[in-house]
């Protein structure tokens, strides 16, 4: 910024102070749970003050989570591990499938001509503008009536996403509009059909758009709590990571178990934070762009 080169150093110092204060506000809570996760249970049970350090600091809380919870008895796996596995497939199956179907649809709307295209497109625009978040819970009435609860409780979390969201379709379509028609013509002259053109031309060229939508969907699926709580709560075999974390207090009800709750919070946050540190550029772009979906 050329206009602001003459900054007083005092201004710069104030900026640093403000940013450091905000950093403290954000990371102080994380550090307190990290510290507590190493404090032994006996000390937590007896003390009434927060302690920053203990001479007997250990990893018992983390070991307890992996060896001591009741999920091992009922399902054969520690709840955290089982939850992670379940979260992965419950998130990835609809996400990948949905990206493909939304991609097909975006390709059709962007590059193809078919009967009823304009009508369908206008209909989609209107639909996309309706904010449907308020129906997130009441949809339970629908799913319980078609029998998608209990043992089939994973279906409401998996099947709808496979159809690909309309917002995702619009986002991909906008990106596809920027891909020159000549590339598609060339592929078509080589004898490629609809799906071949999609996988050989649109998918590779649309990679940045797919990645940003993938990250947006993955963060949302990984952190989803309401859905699993509504449909999978009484199904130990389908426990998800977030569901497991939300049950941690009842799984370890003894006094002084705060180290276990803290360790669980750290273990729950860690995977995404680690992935984020390696791919932060994709995350920031993906979430910024994916949120607007314009």
């Amino acid at each position, binding site marked *: 910024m*050329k*206009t*602001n080169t003459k900054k007083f150093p005092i201004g710069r110092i104030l*900026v640093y102070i403000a*940013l450091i204060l905000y*950093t403290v506000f*954000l990371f102080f809570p*994380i550090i307190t*749970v990290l510290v507590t996760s190493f404090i032994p249970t006996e000390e937590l049970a007896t003390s009434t*003050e*927060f302690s920053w350090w203990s001479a007997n600091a250990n990893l018992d809380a983390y070991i307890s989570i992996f060896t001591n919870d009741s999920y091992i008895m009922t399902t054969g796996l520690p709840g955290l591990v089982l939850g992670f596995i379940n979260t992965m497939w419950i998130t990835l199956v609809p996400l990948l499938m949905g990206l493909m179907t939304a991609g*097909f*649809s975006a390709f*059709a*709307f962007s*590059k*193809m*001509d*078919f*009967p*009823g*295209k304009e009508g369908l*497109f206008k209909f*989609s625009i209107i639909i996309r*503008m309706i*904010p*449907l*978040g*308020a*129906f*997130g*819970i*009441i*949809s339970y*009435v629908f799913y319980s*009536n078609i029998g998608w609860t209990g043992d089939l409780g994973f279906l409401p979390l998996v*099947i*709808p996403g496979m*159809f*690909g969201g*309309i917002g*995702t379709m619009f986002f991909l379509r906008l990106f596809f509009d920027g891909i020159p028609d000549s590339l598609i013509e060339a592929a*078509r002259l080589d004898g490629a059909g*609809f*799906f071949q053109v999609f996988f050989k031309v649109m998918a590779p060229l649309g990679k940045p758009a797919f990645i940003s939508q993938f990250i947006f969907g993955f963060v949302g699926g*990984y*952190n989803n*709590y309401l859905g699993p709580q*509504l449909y999978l709560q009484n199904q130990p075999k389908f426990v998800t990571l977030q569901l497991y*974390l939300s049950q941690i207090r009842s799984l370890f009800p003894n006094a002084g178990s*705060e180290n276990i*709750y*803290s360790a*669980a919070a750290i273990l*729950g946050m860690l995977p995404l*934070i680690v992935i*984020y540190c390696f791919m932060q550029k994709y995350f*920031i772009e993906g979430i*910024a762009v994916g*949120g607007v979906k314009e």
Partner: protein
Amino acid sequence: MQTKPANKKKKHWRTESKIALAVACIPLLGFIIFNGFPLIISFIGMFCNVDLYNLTNIQWNNFEGFKSVFIPRHAFDLFYFDLSKYFYKAIYITIWIASTQLVTLLIALFIATLLREKFAGSKIFQILFFIPYICSTVAVALMWRWIFDWEGGILNSMLGTNIKWLEDPKTMTWCIIIATMWSAPGYGIVMYKAAFSNINSALYEAAAVDGANAWHKFRHVTLPGISPTTFYLMQAGVGAGLLTYDLAQLVIPNAWGVPGGNESMGLTMMRLVYYLITNSTTTDANGISYMVSCACVISWLLFVVTGAISMVLLHFRDKSVQ
């Protein structure tokens, strides 16, 4: 839409236009099945008693759902749950929580402004500030519950106080709000950073020529330039605030059968809907149907309110783009 390339391709693609039509409809089909039917059922549910497991059993309920939600004591006489009391409390708490989204917006704008210019470390700050946004609400709630813990929590230790932050009706709602404010601004910061880079730098130069100081530039160039983003963030934030469920439920769980904890000071509208739906399986048959009907009424009310607010804000946003 793009009539030119379409005409050119029409002949070649004719055999495949059927495929195109079919795949183009898939997301719409998903919408109609998984959003359309719940919408219809919950609409019917406002006026009729709907069975949770047998849809053929639908009975007109003479507006009992509406009466139970809005008229004091009506629900208690009908199914022994004083719904309207909780409903009005939930309106109050929900609006309170949603309005703090505007503070979140101000925090995001302030931090993004500080990060606007590149300087030593600015990149690191930006990376760090986004981390809370990707942390799961469940882990965040565990974290804040430990900080606010009455015995051994760091807040009481640091202040030397002995306050039951999570149980005292005076402080409970603030616990939810602080946890929300901790995690929410990261998104706004990123969006504002992107909005800043889209402002035409010639406008600043012109303003400098006119002798504008930093505040004038911010007021007359930056603020108008980012107003589409502001309206979008307002719409997303207030919408999310009105539909708060996760953090409210996790930081302040239901206590002894009271939805929303002590004096229901953590009760949001979505939590009330959840309570009505899930607890409906444990009461008697008549109560079940009435509670589901009430949940439908509240859901539709929330839908109308969030829809109206986002329509107004989108209107302002479209106007501000020009």
